[in-house]
């Protein structure tokens, strides 16, 4: 779980052009100013590249926090 969280934090930090340390544990669209629509799209592309699959449009919208990213990675097929 810690590994997944670290991976999620890395993906989000890369997408938002921040360092992982700058992200709070409760990072979300509401709490991180840099989480813009363009940053969100970069995050989705990053998640998809790391999972080698395309996310469903509904899931693209639902992802709104660091916990959500962990959950998506956790439920990746083949995991």
């Amino acid at each position, binding site marked *: 779980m810690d590994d997944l969280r670290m991976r999620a934090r890395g993906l989000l930090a890369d997408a938002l*052009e*921040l*360092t992982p*340390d*700058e992200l709070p544990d409760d990072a979300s669209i509401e709490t991180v*100013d840099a989480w813009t*629509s*363009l940053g*969100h*799209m*970069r995050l*989705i*592309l990053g998640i998809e590249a790391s999972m080698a699959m395309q996310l469903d*449009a509904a899931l*693209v*919208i639902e992802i709104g926090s660091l916990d959500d990213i962990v959950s998506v990675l956790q439920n990746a097929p083949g995991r």
Partner: protein
Amino acid sequence: MSITIDFGAIGSVTDLRQGTRWTAEDLARATEHTAALLRPMVTPDRPHVVIGHGGTPMFFADLFGVWAAGGCAVCVNPGITAGEMSVIGNFLNPAAVLIGKEDGPVVPDGVPSLCSVRDKAIKKSLLGGAVRTLDDPALILFTSGTTGAPKGVVHSLRSLLARIGLNRVYMGDASLARSLCVLPTHFGHGLIGNCLTPLFAGGELLLWSGMAMKEMVDLGATLAEHDVTFMSSVPAFWPIALRLSTAPPRRCLQRVHIGSAPLSSALWKDVAHWAGTDSVVNMYGITETANWIAGASLADVPAEDGLIGTMWGGCAAVLSVDGTMRSRGEGEILVQTPSLMMGYHARPDLTEPVLRNGWYHTGDSGHIDGDGRIRLVGRRKSEINKAGVKVHPEEVDLLLERHPGVAEACCFSMPDPVSGEIVGVAVTLAAGETDGQPTPEIADLRDWCRARIKAECVPDRWYTVAEIPKTDRGKVNRDRVRDHCLRQGPG
């Protein structure tokens, strides 16, 4: 004498988020209210009125109100920092700042802040106001320099009305019946092209600027619900929209414009498929020319990277490397258009190099073929195009070098799959403690920038380097600095 806007011919404005619709009569009333507030303040010596809000029907009433009072409207990003507003205040000494709402931008000391919704007009002020002609400055849009040396593009009502008139000729008023604006209203693209053109064509303008991810899901349905005939956007908007929203359930769009950044031929075709029309037009627009001056539609030509079509009024030429100007061939694109700016406000040093003998030097490199079609291949100026927002690297360099912990900074463009380009920066840190402060961390520098400059100008990727590489003549080549940073890696 003041300019009269014919509200009998103007369209209506609807704020989709608020669900409010302002008819031409509502706009006329609110315009007169703003004009009455401003007339005692606006004088020929102090004509500038900053509009610090946008994206609402009130914005247009304030804009028209500034013109009706004989003033020159200065439209700024509503997210402007206090420092940037102070720079603009010192540069223009504006008669007033229109803040739109109580928690609007911080207004410089000594400048009245007005909220048209809140403040009451005095009847006798109807008698005041500055004298205005079509050739007086009417609009200033800042393209850079709000942290130091501002670069404000000045348009007269003549250049704006020329652009709007030409847009209507090339687009046709039927396609402007109901226009959706998802762009900010303080940029030429959103303001002049997407908003003022349909309004002056008598159409209905639907405002939905700053669309959130969750709202984008509803794009197709919203277009059909409101029977939207026209919309414009930047290329970066479309990969997200196509991904999140289903196509409109019935065909309504007659025309789609995409501009302000390079459009790939693949995305161009994807948008046409989604929108259900071939009238998807790759637009070429520059703030200095009141935005759109050329366009290429899939209805007329196959999609091609860099193709921006033929001029919409005026003419184009190329300036080759040997200094020869030709109507065909390769070189820097030069244009003549009736919608050309008057110049940069109080900056002849910036105006003279780009406005020569009636030609505007765009700084873009391209090719004009025998049919007058223009293809852009690159640019000579160093600006970074981040999802349609132009970032001037020199401005960010200078800002960063004001930080006591930074010895030197150099910003550069980096490719990005979502924004097209993003801002990278190489910084050399000052040795040891400076002004009693320890060496700054990247996060500190980023926060420091955020407090002083618009969010889109804050560098995205940061590299600390021992030394910024220079050419053998001691000059900075931004491409070489980027390559050096990429080889070195982040941090």
